[in-house]
């Protein structure tokens, strides 16, 4: 399969376009996604290709249109819903958590909800405390959704296509600071399974586990550890947090004996807590130190650039935690 450089946003768009071409039941709706093309331009051009019936602008009415997507999915459609900001998912929280995630089980497998919620999250550029939150832990906690948080353009394409084809609800969480990031993306149909982590850098001393935009400082930290301290970190990109690829994580931590989970979301009650606790149980006896967590500060995201910079995880934070974990 040939590949060419594409930015993250275009890779996502290509996956949606291909799925809409191959399955007439796939459609997309959301706020300003039609002729405007979405505020981050992910859906640009889809309206022209597929028309207003399949690329639908909605009122600013998250509970209304997420619910409508659920209903359409329950009777045979395969909707994609764009939530303009992850923060807005809370307006539709009942529909997402009480409705979409439970229909199949509560109905005794009589109804399914093959719906994909696309959204973007993350701090950066002064978006503040109601436009920049990372809320994946909320949706990981309640059984219902499979959840992907791609960090590369290729992964974004492959995971998006898989999400659309899945017969259960999926949440596809993009990161606003990644949209312009480019990497080689395979052409044509391209699928990446959920629950399969990617080992980005092999190493034997410590396992660094991350996903989404936090992969950038994590990869940078691995370089610094190697260059400045002679430490070989293994860097794992989770890709999906529901399901988690426990086999890959366990094998890596059993090899290195050390682990750190890094994510932008608040540390308290976060994905890192779940990963660290589970991995500790699975690798106890081979662990040389407690699995550490690095997350966003447990305060709302500040606006001012000087404060936002403090809030963000820096590669040095990861390096320092690694050195402590390794008792260096």
């Amino acid at each position, binding site marked *: 399969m040939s590949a060419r450089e594409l930015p993250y946003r275009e890779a996502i768009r290509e996956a949606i376009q291909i799925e809409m071409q191959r399955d007439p039941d796939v*459609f997309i709706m959301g706020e300003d996604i039609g002729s405007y093309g979405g505020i981050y331009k992910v859906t640009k051009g889809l309206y022209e290709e597929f028309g207003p*019936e399949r690329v639908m602008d*909605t*009122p600013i*009415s*998250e*509970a*209304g*249109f*997420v*619910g*409508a*997507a*659920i*209903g*359409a*999915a*329950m*009777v*045979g*459609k395969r*909707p994609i819903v764009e939530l303009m900001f992850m923060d807005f998912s809370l307006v539709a929280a*009942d*529909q997402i958590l*009480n*409705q979409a995630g439970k*229909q*199949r*089980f*509560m*109905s*005794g*497998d*009589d*109804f399914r909800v093959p719906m994909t919620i696309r959204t973007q999250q993350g701090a950066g550029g002064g978006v503040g405390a109601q436009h920049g939150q990372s809320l994946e832990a909320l949706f990981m906690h309640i*059984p*219902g959704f*499979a959840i992907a948080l791609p960090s590369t353009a290729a992964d974004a394409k492959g995971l998006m296509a898989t999400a659309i084809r899945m017969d*259960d609800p999926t949440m596809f969480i993009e990161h606003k600071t990644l949209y312009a990031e480019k990497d080689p993306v395979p052409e044509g149909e391209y699928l990446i399974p*959920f*629950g399969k982590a990617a080992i980005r850098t092999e190493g034997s001393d410590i396992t660094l586990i991350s996903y989404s935009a936090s992969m950038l400082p994590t990869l940078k930290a691995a370089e610094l550890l190697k260059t400045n301290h002679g430490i070989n970190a293994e860097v794992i990109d989770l890709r999906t947090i*529901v*399901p988690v690829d426990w086999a890959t994580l366990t094998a890596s931590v059993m090899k290195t004996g050390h682990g750190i989970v890094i994510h932008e979301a608040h540390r308290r009650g976060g994905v890192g807590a779940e990963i660290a606790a589970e991995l500790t149980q699975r690798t106890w006896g081979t662990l040389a130190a407690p699995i550490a967590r690095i997350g966003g500060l447990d305060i709302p995201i500040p606006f001012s650039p000087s404060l936002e910079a403090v809030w963000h995880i820096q590669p040095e934070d990861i390096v320092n935690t690694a050195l402590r974990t390794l008792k260096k």
Partner: protein
Amino acid sequence: MSLSTQQLEEAYAEMLRIRGFEERAQELYAKLHFKGSTHLGIGQEAVAVGTRLGLQDGDLVAPTYRGHAYALAWGMTSFSLFAELLGREAGSNHGRGGSKHMGSAELGVIPGNAIVAANLPIACGTALRAKMDGDDEVTVVVFGDGATNQAAFHEAMNLAAVWDLPVIFLCENNLYSEMTPIKDAVKVDELSIRASAYGMPGVRVDGMSVGAVADVVSQAAARARSGQGPTFIEAMTYRYCGHMPGDLCDYRTREEEAEWKSRDAIEACETLLIAAGKTPAETAAIRAQVEADLNTAEAEALASPLPDPSTINRGAAAWMETSR
């Protein structure tokens, strides 16, 4: 639409079945045959039966947690629903949903919902599918007066109106939002006027008259099928029982209850049948047949097994963790 004697007789039998079903459900709950809760609509049967009469085969219904009447009116067997209430494997949803969540893809019953206005947006979605695919299927979504104060009601009303969706918003106004009088919860005298704010017709109907309900529902359905969009119907009705088991209804008077019961829809239907030439012996025979069928269904459901614990992951997505 005036009902034929045949339709009246069917409506009579169906209302009797629904009432008899719910009276038995009340007793089964009181005798601890099942737990959780059960929300009955004894007294409100004409709304469900009239609604079904006003629609066509293939039209969908999305009820609330007070939804037994709609599942039955849409063709669910008494046995299947008894078994679901009792948490049995043979239930409509294999005991996974219970009293509040019965549904059936085959019968066109979107599962009942325990969040009062949550099925309104979902019904917009089933209606959207019909519109996208060019089908003339209509979805009717049912909710109580209390649901008209929840955000999802307003979002769905607006969405359905602006997209001209083939959906009917059917409000069962039984005067009480759970235990609070609706007059203490809204500033308007008639809920139907709320429809005008969304650009759709709103109509109030006597919910104790199966014919009147069938009439307005069939008009709303015709409107929906011709692409003119949604209608809001406020059916004035009354639940003779409490909102839930143990509710003593001390928030309303016995006089008010007696006044509504004097307009009982089943009695009214029987009067119409007699006027149309049926004999008291014939209506008594219908009653006896309904009772006998319910007794059989109830006994069979009580005798049927609970789900095997090893089937706990039925309906769980592949990634859900169903073991410790």
